[in-house]
């Protein structure tokens, strides 16, 4: 049978290139100051979805919540094989914590054709919380399988997965629909295909078209498979007090820049003599006993 699969994706700042200057006063991140990429483990989730589709047929829809610029992350997913992409963008979504974000995603997923599978990356590199998957599963009333490395078997009724744990693994079987969070060890995400890139680089969300976002133009893009669907709070019937800062129980109280301590710092020359002195000192202090 064919599977309807939704993959939740986050556009994240490339933390490899992060500096303190990228932080704003209120403790949030000035994303504009950093290169934006698709969260790495979300690509593993997308790859898992594409492999299920390749083997059994179906449709893969990627969904992201973010600023208008997150449309780029949706294009990235289209280049790699997603059939359909949805951008959730609205000022009222800004400053959402994980609880509010999972609520917004759940509203969007309810508007889409009922999925057999919802896939998320295990966690995002900018927050490392790994909370969206389980929170979204709860909001949608779905069973959850976190830390999934492998789908062993899938049928119209059930799915069997391997979960990687701290010291080993387990194999679980449960019903569909279900939500999975996918680890980086699950697969090697395919690169964008040249052919798909040529076609989908013209894909646009309404917010990117400005004054040209007329109903006719949007319809034309949709017909050619080049429309990145764009929904705000009203389109997905999202309760304004449950999203954004208002819907977020957590607040950043304070941000501190860490002062580095160097109470008894010694430079050791990288020579035989220098290192010899260090070893003697450590031995005198019985470090190796």
């Amino acid at each position, binding site marked *: 049978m064919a599977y309807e699969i939704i993959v939740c994706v986050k556009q994240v700042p490339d*933390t490899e290139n*992060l500096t303190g200057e990228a*932080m704003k006063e209120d*403790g949030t*991140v000035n994303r504009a100051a950093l290169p934006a990429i698709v969260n790495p483990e979300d690509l593993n989730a997308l790859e898992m979805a594409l492999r299920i589709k390749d083997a059994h047929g179906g449709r893969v829809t990627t969904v992201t919540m973010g600023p208008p610029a997150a449309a780029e992350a949706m294009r990235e997913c289209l280049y790699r094989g997603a059939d359909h992409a949805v951008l959730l963008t609205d000022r009222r979504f800004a400053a959402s*914590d*994980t*609880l509010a974000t999972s609520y917004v995603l759940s509203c969007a997923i309810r508007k889409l054709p009922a999925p057999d599978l919802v896939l998320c990356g295990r966690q995002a590199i900018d*927050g*490392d*919380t*790994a*909370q*969206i998957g*389980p*929170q*979204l*599963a*709860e909001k949608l009333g779905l*069973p*959850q399988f*976190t*830390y999934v490395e492998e789908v062993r078997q899938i049928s119209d009724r059930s799915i069997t997965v391997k*979960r*990687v*744990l*701290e*010291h*080993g*693994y*387990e*194999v*679980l079987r*449960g*019903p569909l629909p279900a939500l999975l969070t996918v680890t980086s060890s699950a697969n090697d995400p395919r690169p964008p295909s040249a052919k798909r890139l040529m076609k989908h680089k013209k894909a646009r969300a309404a917010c990117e078209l400005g004054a040209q976002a007329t109903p006719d133009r949007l319809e034309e893009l949709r017909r050619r498979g080049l429309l990145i669907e764009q929904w705000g709070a009203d389109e997905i019937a999202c309760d304004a007090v449950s999203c954004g800062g208002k819907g977020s*129980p*957590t*607040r*950043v*109280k*304070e*941000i*501190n*820049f*860490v002062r*580095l301590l160097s109470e008894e*710092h*010694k*430079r*050791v020359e*990288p*020579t*035989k003599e220098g*290192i010899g002195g*260090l*070893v003697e000192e*450590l031995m005198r*202090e019985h*470090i*190796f006993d």
Partner: protein
Amino acid sequence: MDEPKNVCVFAEVQDGQVAEVSLELLGKAAELAAELGGRVGAFLLGESVEHLATALFAHGCDEVHMAQHRALAHYASLPYADVLVRMVRESRPAVVLFGATTTGRDLAPRVASALRVGLTADCTDLRIGPHQDLVAGRDYPKLLYQIRPAFGGNIIATIVNPETRPQMATVREGVMRMGAAKPGRRGKLIRFDGSVERSLLCVELLEEHRAERKVNLKKANVIVSGGAGVGSKENFALIRRLAETLGGEVGASRAAVDAGFIEKAHQVGQTGTTVRPKLYIACGISGAVQHRAGMQESSKIVAINTDPNAPILQIAHYGIVGDLNQVIPTLIDVYKEHAK
């Protein structure tokens, strides 16, 4: 209703024992409960776990909230979340803490979502303090400060949940120190109904494979860690050789783990293991705050780095500016000579 004051820990059961991280959290819970003027509680779920309450009492727990049922024999998201949500609603704690294990990180967000409360992952410190909330326009004399490194760089964020209760957080194993057990210390055992609807038992455990814990960073006296600067998986052999020579364990930074140089079990830092060895040698590690959070309490820190401005050199007791490919072999030779 009264403002909740109690601080509770989810008592994770691993291989028939209370997980170390849960016992570590009880120590912190006692500190927080004293500040709040409340009691220390634990949520204990399982099939036959009553005997484990003794260990929880010994580690400072005043009240064990226990749900025993066949449906809870193995950890499973749906029944555990369902039962725990009911237990939290009835017992109304101010704070609930979870170990940031795969189980804790699976369970806590599902529970937080059902209760519509805030949750902060991987805290490196927890304190009680006042908070003036501009959004709510209220003063809170005693909120839980959930402190964690935020987002790269040298930044520590303090997160609060002013309006929702309980305030929930996860903490990695080893971050809090386990207090000494007081054998014979008693507390109150409160029983809860552990039964769940059949529909929540839809996920079956088909296989379970437990590998022996091969890496024990927490117990090591000496740890030699490699970072991105090691350059390759092959070159990590150099780190292993030094660790072996010094009789220590091999650690790694997240960058080295992400690059595939070494397995995740070796990762030191906020999202890895927190360690306090007598000697920590950081090789080719720049020293992001997340890494430092996991090793800065080591008695002696030696850092080897080509970059004289690397943050790790600032917290190291001994800094060696040089190429680890030359420094490590020299260190091995010199140590062998001295150890004779």
